[in-house]
């Protein structure tokens, strides 16, 4: 799953630690989400979207279907 987390964070001039604190997760988790190595749970994805005051689909984009 792709996401715009890094861009949105940079637009607000937040560090990964700032975002981690706001989301109550570790900085490693923020980094893993940004680099696409970890897909957050639905509650965390909603929390991220709410934090940036955006719809969840404006932050996260599903990976293209491999059977398409």
């Amino acid at each position, binding site marked *: 799953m792709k996401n715009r987390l890094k861009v949105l964070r940079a637009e607000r001039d937040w560090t990964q630690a700032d975002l981690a604190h706001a989301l109550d997760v570790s900085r490693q988790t923020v980094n*893993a989400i940004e680099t696409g190595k970890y897909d957050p749970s639905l509650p965390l994805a909603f929390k991220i979207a709410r934090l940036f005051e955006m719809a969840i689909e404006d932050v996260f984009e599903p990976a293209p279907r491999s059977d398409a």
Partner: protein
Amino acid sequence: MTTSRPDRSVHLASWTGAWLATTAAAVFGPEFIWNSDELLTVLAVLLNVGAGIGMIVAYVRHLEAIDEMMRRIQLEAMAISLGVGIVGGIGYSLLDATNLIAFDAEIGHLVALFGLTYMAAILVGLKRRR
């Protein structure tokens, strides 16, 4: 900057240390400290089981305190360790039962296998998400 999650790792480490110390006392105490006194040996074993229960509770609380990615890494490591422990343990027991190894299968070897597998799985899980 830290999150608002409480750090339970020190708590867990303390209980693990207590369990290890009481295990050592229950194993070596009867021979080297209290001259095989039965009451003291029973007390040492009860203390060991109590510390073990404390360690399990501390581990559950540790799992509840860490964030979802770290919890997933821990759960994956536990699943891998459990699988390796069961498959490796049964295989090891079969080697002993069929006399294919010259020594007796020891539970300590299985515990060591479990621990090493768990640590390796944690490191691989962290590296995969770095």
